[in-house]
């Protein structure tokens, strides 16, 4: 980390977000254009659909040192591809179970449904998730690093 010598308060978590192109990414965009404040801890990766998010992506993000992973898609029933988010829900809830079973804190992973008009909700989800990760501290179990 850049600030190894720094006090613990200066530690900022790294959160990777996988956002769907049609709803959540547009929602994040709306938050930006509406000048809604949200933490800078999140790095958003745009995917075409939350159904595109392979559990492998999430595990890889953790392995590469992410402190939290947020996957966001359209509300159930609103998927641009009709059923992508239902598939995402099945895969990722099961992956969350696996995180729990291997002893990695499953609360480092979060799923959310954010529509294109929910800039405010996006900001809330990210703020709340960042607060939670800050309490948990750096993720070392899957990355093997010191933070």
């Amino acid at each position, binding site marked *: 980390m850049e600030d190894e010598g720094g006090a613990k308060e200066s530690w900022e978590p790294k959160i990777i977000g996988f956002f769907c192109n049609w709803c959540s990414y547009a929602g994040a965009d709306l938050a930006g254009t509406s000048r809604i404040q949200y933490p800078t801890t999140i790095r958003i990766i745009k995917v075409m659909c939350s159904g595109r998010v392979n559990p492998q992506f999430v595990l890889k993000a953790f392995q590469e040192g992410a402190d939290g992973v947020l996957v966001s898609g359209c509300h159930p029933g609103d998927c641009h591809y009709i059923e992508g988010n239902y*598939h995402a829900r099945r895969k990722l809830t099961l992956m969350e179970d696996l995180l729990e079973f291997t*002893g990695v804190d499953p609360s480092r992973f979060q*799923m959310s449904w954010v529509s294109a008009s929910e800039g405010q909700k996006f900001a809330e989800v990210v703020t709340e998730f960042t607060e939670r990760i800050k309490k948990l501290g750096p993720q070392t*179990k899957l990355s093997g690093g010191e933070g």
Partner: protein
Amino acid sequence: MTDYKALEKQIQDQARQWLESGEVKYVIGFEKGDNSPVCRPVFIYKPEDAGKLAWGPLCNNNLTKYLVEEVQIKPKKGEEPDLRPVGIVVKPCDSKTIVELMKENIVPRERVKIIGVISEGTINPKALDKALKDVPLDKIAGIQILDGGDNFTIKYDGEPLSVPKDELLNGKCKVCVVHNPVVYDIFVGDKVTQIDKDEFEDIADLEAMSDEERYEYWKEQLSKCIRCYACRDTCPLCYCEECVFDRTKPYNWNEKTVDLPENFFYHMVRAMHLAGRCVDCGGCERVCPMDIPIRKLNRFLLKRAKERFKVVPGINVEDKAMFGDYDIDDPGEGIK
């Protein structure tokens, strides 16, 4: 109680009949090992070799892996492919594998002729070694194992040994609830009555632990992994032509380094790939040179898949695949 000799005779007769009539290309079965009582896979092409086929509690392999390889062979240019079915001897757990393979359109039903044999449990060769520590080495290959209800009787030319089944059985057999083949052309043996029991009792102690304890447990286990990929190579449901762990382009998902984060990644991704598909044949644990309890990961997901999505693999070919299907009312607690 299973009479292994009678089952063996039936298997041999059936294989001989199929090979004589030319109905099958060849028969995949078990034969007795050379210097060991443990059976090994054999491919029988001629009717006169059918007598080689053996059956016993030491037939541990899941032979369906060879079936997958058979259907994946591409014919040479200008050659007419031989599409006759292949005969195969299966235990109940292996027959569940065939159901999964048919469900996933890997093995067409008409390409396989199944001799389904009942099984009340197979013996773990490592446990057998322990039980045979007093038997002279030159006698071990010639031992005979008989099913005596609650125990196995091991016969050799000394005093016969009687060992409780619990000591010898494979872990998967102790918790197994399916003792009859699910899919078959020929049923060998008398139908075993189903026992009703908690099939997930073996992971209950792990589930009761705290997150930290579980992490320590898996850390200890997975740090042993040498990533020989034997678990993947033996798994009949790991049939991808190019495995994600072998691929380095366009992106190298998993470094070849053997360290803890890479091992965690490997085992977790493999568990996810088998989620809702694994039929718990125990192949991965059987071949693991480091004795990692790989099955526990798969079984945990098996349990959760059953609880959350009512998916039970390997029972019905008509069932939908776990991740190929969804339900609008799937649980999604914790999603914001």
